[in-house]
């Protein structure tokens, strides 16, 4: 994961639980760099160990923590100067979801080692779509729910999100049903 993600986790923990909590989490996680460089690619296990340590230190569920972080991520990236990128990626939530791959393609121009996920939007009825989420990484589905909720707030379009299918040997991707309410 890029340092930008790890920095996001740090700021999320500090904003929600305080700097001392982050200090304890890094001590629990083991060898954690003092400062994350946004454009530096760090090994995935480092990010997973940070999340694992946070779950233990804060006594929260991993899914709960990842969902909250997903929601925070939308706010965080906008603050980090990527609001414009989000802006050009869609005028509404559905358009944005359909442009997610395009968005990641543009991000990959800057973050050349990016291994972005891939998305597909499939109509599932009136005011309802299924979002297919393909990722080379495991365990991040709860974060997707948080991201969708964060986008809902950004576009001011209230939605309900439900994971209707999880990645398995038979299903190569997760499916989230997004219903506008």
């Amino acid at each position, binding site marked *: 994961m890029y340092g*930008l993600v790890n920095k996001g986790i740090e700021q999320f923990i500090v904003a929600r639980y305080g700097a001392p909590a982050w200090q304890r989490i890094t001590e629990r996680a083991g060898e954690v760099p*003092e*400062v994350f460089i*946004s454009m530096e690619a760090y090994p995935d296990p480092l990010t997973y160990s940070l999340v694992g340590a946070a779950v233990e230190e804060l006594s929260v569920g991993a899914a709960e923590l990842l969902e909250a972080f997903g929601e925070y991520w939308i706010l965080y990236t906008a603050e980090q*100067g990527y609001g*414009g990128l989000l802006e*050009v990626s869609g005028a509404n939530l559905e358009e944005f979801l359909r442009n997610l791959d395009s968005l990641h393609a*543009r991000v990959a*121009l800057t973050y050349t080692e990016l291994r972005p996920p891939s998305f597909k939007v499939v109509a599932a009825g009136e005011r309802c779509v299924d979002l297919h989420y393909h990722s080379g990484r495991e365990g991040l589905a709860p974060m997707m729910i948080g991201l969708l909720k964060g986008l809902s707030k950004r576009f001011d379009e209230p939605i309900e999100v439900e994971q209707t299918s999880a990645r398995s040997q038979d299903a190569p991707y997760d499916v989230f049903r997004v219903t506008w309410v």
Partner: protein
Amino acid sequence: MTATRGLPPSAVLEVFPFHLWLDEHLRLVQAGPVIHRLFPDLCEGDPVFAHFQILRPECPADAQALREHAKQHMVIEARATGLRLRGQILPIDDGSLVFLGSPWVTEVDELGRWGLSIADFAIHNPVADQLFLIRSIRATLDDTRKLAARVEDHRKRLLASQQRIDLHLRHTPLAVIDWDQAGRVAAWNPAAERIFAIAEAAAIGRDPSILRLIELPDEPRVGTTLKLVGATEESTVLLAHDIAGRSPTLCEWYNTPLVDASGQTIGVASIVRDVTDNLRTERALREAQKLESLGRLAGGLAHDFNNLLVALMGDADLALMKLRADTGAAAHIEQILVHAERAAELTRQLLDFSGHGAYRTQTVDLNEILRETSSLLAATIPRHVSVALRLGERIPPIDADISQLRQIAINLIINGAEAIGDAGGRIELRTRFEVLDAPLDDPLLRGGPLAPGPYVCFEVVDDGRGMAPDALAHVFDPFFSTKFVGRGLGLAPIVGIVKGHGAGVRVSSKLGAGTRFELWFPALAVPASAQAEQAEQATALGKRRVLIVDDEPAVRNMAVGVIEAMGYEVVAAAAGDAALALFDADPHGFDLVLTDLTMPGLDGHELFAELTDRDPRLPVILSSGYSHQRIAAYPDGRPATFLQKPYRARSLMETINAELERRAS
């Protein structure tokens, strides 16, 4: 292949949102939609360069010049807002010119200032991506600066910490020594230089042989090896070091293996404390405690023996009173008394040693005693030993037993002469007046601690062979001697005598550099005065009744016999409680009480208090074999008369008569 197709006008508007189309007179024919939004005053037919100025290349704003610079990078600036557009001029066959470009911005945040957004740029336009790239690079630069600041902060803290550690290592009294994996010195601080008398430069790289370890057979705690190579556990060891010019130096070593992050032992860190003085003090204290115990035992024995002697001598005196002087038995009884007196002298010596000796103290001029003693000894001291007096002037008097003082001086002078031996030398007797501002609580001081106040300090200094620390530690032990035998208790009684006088003694010596004994006696504020004459006592003062209290039957019976022989009526009690009951039964029936001090139950002090509470004028004589129990008056001012055991019949009679006379007067 040549291009055969052109973009339809609507596509031009979408893919070039910032273009300007000029006719051959440089008037506006068409503009991109964002240009129209940004510059609403710009209308078709307007001369374009009335709204914009050319910044690059340097050329006039005419069609021909522009055509000539068609292949160059062009920058124009809006005269109204200052927004710069960068791009190029494209000549068209019909004579018109098209400027294809986009706003020149380098920060995402800058877009808002010009009323722009990312969405204003065509998707194919790399400017948006460049902006994000620049943004990301700037964020990374910020991260790097933050990291650099943290590194700098750590560096400063590390430096400060290192300086503190350096200061600590430089000034700590503990030697700090690091050993490398091969057991060679890697670090050696100033305390190590001091303790082992080896400079850092000479120590670095050396093995432990530089420590010059020695064995001390009389100190079983001292180890013989220092394990460094392959040490995996912390260790503590006491080692003795042979350091040039010093007596053995004893050091406590605390060794900790240094293990790196990979678990590899990279050496040993040693912290070393010089405990030579501590151990010497500890040993002195141990010896003092041993002597104290021995003294207590000797004192107890002497006390009991004194009681027996009181009875023996009293009965002998009584027998003499009842026998005619010319009978043969009287001569034998006289001999019994002579032997008893010698036995009493022996108990006196024992009590001297224990510090509980019986002293006849008086106001004494120490200088005078020393002049007399040195003069007396002149004939017995070898000729090659000179005894010099360096006596201070205006030395205040002390309260001391003259014979005991002489004994001390004689013992120390003889000790000094024998230490000097045949080589010849000098003994100095010195006195000085000294006021202690603070308590003198030196562990090497026997008889101490001394309270602050004025003291007469008496020193005996010789330039003889001196003593090694081991011998010095035993100098006051009974029967201890380095040179000779047959001196009895040796210097041991000095400590007891000193204690009995509330004084202190200290000895210092170095092998080959002589010995110094220092004695401090409390100085009296009053000048020395002539010894008061002892008045002869009258025999009997008429019919009197005396209460005798002593738990020792032999003493009690002897006293009863003597007092009855004086013609007085005697009532005896074996305990303080019984005596008090007798007194309470007949409060006006006794003219005097003689009581022992050490008794089970109500002791002599308590009985004295009870009796004098009831009758403050009642004469009470206190008696004991311990001189430290001697009492002249109680703190509340009640006078007390003391009679030292063992006493002869005559001294008992004299004391009783004196008390009765005092009461009568």
